[in-house]
């Protein structure tokens, strides 16, 4: 979703008029000196594709579980050049829902042409946006998407729901990660290695295939980051465990499976 409602139509009109005046044959879809980058996300549990049909999965520590819902926001995309300078794409807020195929891919347009050695994105929503007037909360940010805490105004950044079947009896997993207030801000940034150089060129659309591994929510990069599934029914508000899960998924959930320049 792109929150630049006015800009785009105005730009298209101007660009069409300009190309008609100067007889330019190039497509008017993007600004001169810019290209597009498309993202596609495959939701995984370890090496298996995530299914929401009751398929049982196991964590490395041997707990078993199923998943009914897996949804999260990706926002504030940045493209990083070799010299460390970045391009921050404005207005990018994407709700990825494992139940909706169309939500698992999106295209970022108007990226300045150039060579990029890295990307980063917030898993969640920045605090300015999540505190915004409800009139601004359209499209993927709309509170009607059930990714919003009514009792503590702000978005749920990531939602995992299912059951854990460890030890026989099934019990619910309800994990809603959110919160933007210090010291328990769960706003985290992921910057998976590109393993290559992203070449943004006018009229081209390179593709980045990402993998999002549910298992990485339970274990992060540091000792002590492990969260047992048995803790999950209680994670529905900001706090230290929500922050730990957010740090876990920022550190390892996303990886680049392929980078296709064309």
């Amino acid at each position, binding site marked *: 979703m792109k929150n630049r409602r006015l800009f785009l139509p105005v730009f298209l009109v101007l660009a069409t008029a300009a190309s008609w005046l100067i007889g330019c044959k190039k497509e008017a879809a993007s600004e001169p000196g810019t290209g597009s980058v498309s993202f596609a996300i495959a939701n995984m549990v370890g090496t298996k594709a995530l299914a929401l049909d009751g398929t049982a999965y196991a964590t490395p520590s041997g707990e078993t579980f199923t998943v009914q819902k897996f949804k999260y926001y990706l926002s504030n995309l940045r493209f990083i050049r070799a010299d460390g300078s970045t391009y921050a794409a404005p207005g990018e807020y994407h709700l990825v829902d494992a139940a909706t195929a169309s939500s698992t891919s999106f295209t970022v347009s108007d990226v300045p042409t150039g060579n990029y050695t890295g990307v980063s994105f917030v898993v969640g929503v920045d605090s300015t946006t999540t505190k915004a007037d409800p009139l601004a909360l359209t499209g993927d940010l709309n509170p009607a998407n059930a990714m919003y805490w009514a*009792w503590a*105004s702000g978005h749920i950044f990531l939602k995992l729901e299912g059951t854990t079947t460890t030890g026989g009896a099934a019990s619910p997993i309800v994990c809603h990660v959110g919160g933007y207030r210090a010291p328990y801000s769960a706003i985290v940034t992921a910057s998976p290695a590109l393993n290559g150089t992203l070449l943004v060129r006018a009229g081209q659309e390179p593709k980045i295939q990402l993998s999002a591994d549910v298992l990485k929510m339970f274990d992060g990069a540091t000792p002590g980051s492990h969260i047992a599934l048995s803790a999950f029914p209680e994670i529905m508000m900001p706090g230290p465990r929500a922050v730990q899960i957010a740090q876990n998924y920022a550190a390892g959930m996303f990886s680049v499976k392929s980078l296709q320049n064309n």
Partner: protein
Amino acid sequence: MRGSTQLWQRLHQLRAHWRPVALLALAGAVLASAGCGRNVEVALAVPGTMQPSNFPAMVYGLDKNPPDAATFALGRRLFYDPQLSADGTVSCGSCHRATEAFAHAGHRLSPGVAGRLAPRNAPALQNLRWRRGFMADGGVLGLELQALAPLTSPAEMNMPLADALARLNADADYRRQFAAIYGPGPIDTPQFLRALAQFVASLTSANSRYDKHVRHEAGGELSPQEVSGLLTFKAKCGSCHATDLFTDERFHNNGLDRAFPVDSGRAHITSRPADRGLFKVPSLRNVVRTAPYMHDGRFATLAQVLAHYDHGVQPSPTLDPALRLPGGRPGIALSATEQTNLLAFLTTLTDNDFLTDSRLAAPR
């Protein structure tokens, strides 16, 4: 700002029973264009849009969601519509009753859908234009967002926002009413929340005997006992129940308990240990009509509330400094006479104009 041209257009969209109101609004617009100010126009059409001279400035100003009769009527309809609850049995008005300052008198906790009990006492709804945060823990940041909490809470109306919008969009009459205000297209989140906000923003209580007293208006006479109560109030209660809104809009631990395992108040939102047991100071307007008291409705009478402050305050690490007496005893020392006078004073905060305003009651 709505000009008189738009007002003419609006006139054509109004149903017959709103025409008298619209004509009043039109008369107001004529007055306004004659230089009397636009507040005259708005005041005739929608209740609660004037700035009382003894109140601080509005937080949710008229420019945020300019009041008009059609949107107010729609908000009022939504407020009283039980179809906005999952099983069609509970409306906002079920637990927020006009004659009780939009509190739920006699209910410690109010039943939501399927008889489930809401976790906290239903607060009075009044003077919401002057509020910064909402809920006893301040978790909700703005007036337009506030309705989402009871709407979606499983113990209250248990209605996901998307389901509420679907139900409204399936109703041809609602579609017409929304389209007349917001234009064609499906009813969406901002339309729904802003229409509802127009109604709750109109709930202004500023005409109690106390108000008339401080504004030196007719009908503002206080008895000597009430004046004594007012003086005690200013000296001993006014630091938290501040301004003529009777709240400092902040969070305090008023010593209800030594620990807060069930409801940690402000800490529920901030997770900060220093916020455990802190709750938003409620206004005391119409307080005689809004029993029971406290966030959990534990006190049935105002006499019990005063007894709590005099000798019931429990110590805890976050107890408010204003409730720490010299010598270490927590509380606010109130003699029997002071308590009697305070109770007399609190009756002067009852605003019968507000409690009996038929424009705020359930439609029809």
